[in-house]
């Protein structure tokens, strides 16, 4: 979705510069919630303040909302058809493959840092959510805090070293 936003906002409408867009992507990725919603709200706000943010967010949500509502209403009727049931059997396998791909991409981002700390957090988060069924919200808060404290401790050590 990001390349689309860039084309529309920078090239077609000239609302924002390329630099703004890369900032917006960085911010959207490091704030909670769907990246597309974050980016839309941000672009809307930068372009025309609060009303702009409301309209841009509404705009990005509305097509999804309408399409899914329609599909969801007719899905129940289709599910009794045998071919549809078979199709979903195949599709479930594909979803598993898509999740594996997403996992691989995230794992590569973690790997780039080459820090034991990152691997430890990753393993811990997997263990807590998958096997101990700890609420994901607590895991996110805990890991965020842990990252914050860890980076502060490391900075202190570094500044001590240079003194």
């Amino acid at each position, binding site marked *: *979705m990001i390349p689309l936003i860039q084309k529309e906002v920078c090239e077609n409408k000239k609302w924002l510069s390329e630099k703004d867009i890369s*900032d917006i992507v*960085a*911010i959207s*990725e*490091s*704030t*909670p*919630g*769907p990246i597309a*919603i*974050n980016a839309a*709200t941000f672009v809307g706000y930068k372009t025309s303040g*609060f009303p702009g*943010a409301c309209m841009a*967010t509404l705009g990005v*949500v509305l*097509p*999804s909302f309408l399409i*899914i*509502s329609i*599909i*969801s*209403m007719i*899905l129940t009727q289709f599910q009794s058809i*045998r*071919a549809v049931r*078979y*199709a*979903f*059997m*195949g*599709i*479930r*396998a*594909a*979803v*598993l493959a*898509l*999740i*594996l*791909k997403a*996992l691989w991409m*995230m794992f590569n*981002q973690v790997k780039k840092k080459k820090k034991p700390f*990152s691997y430890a*957090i*990753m393993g811990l988060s*997997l263990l*807590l*959510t*998958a096997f101990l069924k700890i609420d*994901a*919200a607590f*895991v*996110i808060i805990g*890991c*965020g805090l842990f990252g914050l404290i*860890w*980076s502060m401790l490391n900075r202190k050590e570094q500044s001590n070293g240079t003194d």
Partner: protein
Amino acid sequence: MVLIKLFLAFLKIGTFTFGGGYAMIAMIQAEAERQGWLTGEELVDFVALSESTPGPLAVNMATFVGMRTGGVLGAIIATLGIVLSSFVIILIIAKCFERYQKSKAVGGIMSGLKPAVAGMIGAAFISVAGTVLFPAGVSVSVFSSAGFWIFLGIFAVTTVLAFKKVHPIKIILLSAVIGIGAGYGFGL
């Protein structure tokens, strides 16, 4: 009552998910199971449909679950829930965004969050694999059923395609065709 629960559940999911839809799956599954809204298989089907329709995965999932549990009003409430905290947080950050971006605290928090999100996608993989591979629990008879091996075959093919960066919609369509063919072919 179900509307309030829907709103709170998706508000929570929207507030604590970073970096896109797949990290959200584990959380949606936990909430949906706790409330008895969806079965594991329905959730996987919803992920597939959300991935093959335009728009952000998270919004699509919220609309789906809302629609299924509380009708049109439920869909609106759930979508509102998943959007609201993003919206508010971005509005706040937009005002002081230079400072936010350069803040070392944010960098530190993100250094903990990124691996956490990777771990959560791992958790989603494990739970989805359990749901679709062993819908009736793990037993020896599973491994002698044709369905299980067809499933593994489709998984292997689609994994290769996914890693070759084939578009998700194409992968989902192909898997549906193979599913239909195998279903009739083996008389499952």
